[in-house]
């Protein structure tokens, strides 16, 4: 399963809208996902696997308590074979912004020689 599909499958059941890369619509509470892909397990001049550095961004209004949803997001990611997440606090112009960072790995990538 690709990293994007795995993220969607893990996070959609939490009931929040999930958007890849960025969002600028009217929702007040939502998730945005992005990932960097690194080649891994190199052999024969090829990356035999891909390692994804994943960020899940949880945006919500200032007055809402984020803890329960943060725990649910972490549990959902861990259950879907993502690594144990780190949580980084932040703030946006419209409220809270929490970044949840973890990794994902899958094989069978074909970058060509790299």
């Amino acid at each position, binding site marked *: 399963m690709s990293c994007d599909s795995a993220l969607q499958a893990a996070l959609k059941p939490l009931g929040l809208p999930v958007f890849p*890369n*960025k*969002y*600028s619509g009217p929702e007040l509470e939502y998730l*945005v996902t*992005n990932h*960097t892909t*690194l080649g891994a397990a190199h052999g024969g001049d090829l990356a035999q696997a891909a390692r994804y*550095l994943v*960020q899940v*961004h949880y*945006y919500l209004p200032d007055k809402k308590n984020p803890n329960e949803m943060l725990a649910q997001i972490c549990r959902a990611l861990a259950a879907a074979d993502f690594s144990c997440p780190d949580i*980084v606090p*932040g703030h*946006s*112009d*419209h409220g809270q*912004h929490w*970044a949840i*960072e973890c990794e994902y790995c899958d094989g069978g990538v074909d970058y060509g020689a790299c």
Partner: protein
Amino acid sequence: MARVSLEGFSELDKMFAKLGNVPWEVTSEALDKMAGVGEDAVRRTGRAMGVHDPESSVHILDKVTHTKPKKTEGGGFCEVTFSGSRRRGNTTTRNSEIAFINEYGKEGQQARPFIRQAAEQYGDQIADPGEEVVGDWMVKTFNEG
């Protein structure tokens, strides 16, 4: 009867004992050099990922720097960080804040996790000068007996 023996463990034992007491000057030099490579890695990755501040002509990546090594109980650390601040209209914004928004994004702005990617992708190169400094010290110390 065959006899199997191993020798040299006392020297190895002494070496491990010395390794536990690497002088701060050596640790400090290793950290400083590693942080220098880390700085370059952050700049390189940031440029590749298009990190910038659209409201200023001063490039955010020119403000990457590292702190002096600080001693802790078990060793020490250096921080690769962003120095200074800039005027944007009537407000002053810290460069580290602009770097944070680039790293994690905001509503309508995609995240560019250049600091995390630099640490992951250039981890070995960042560790190299540290290994070299400590390795040189080990050889010198071992030769002195």
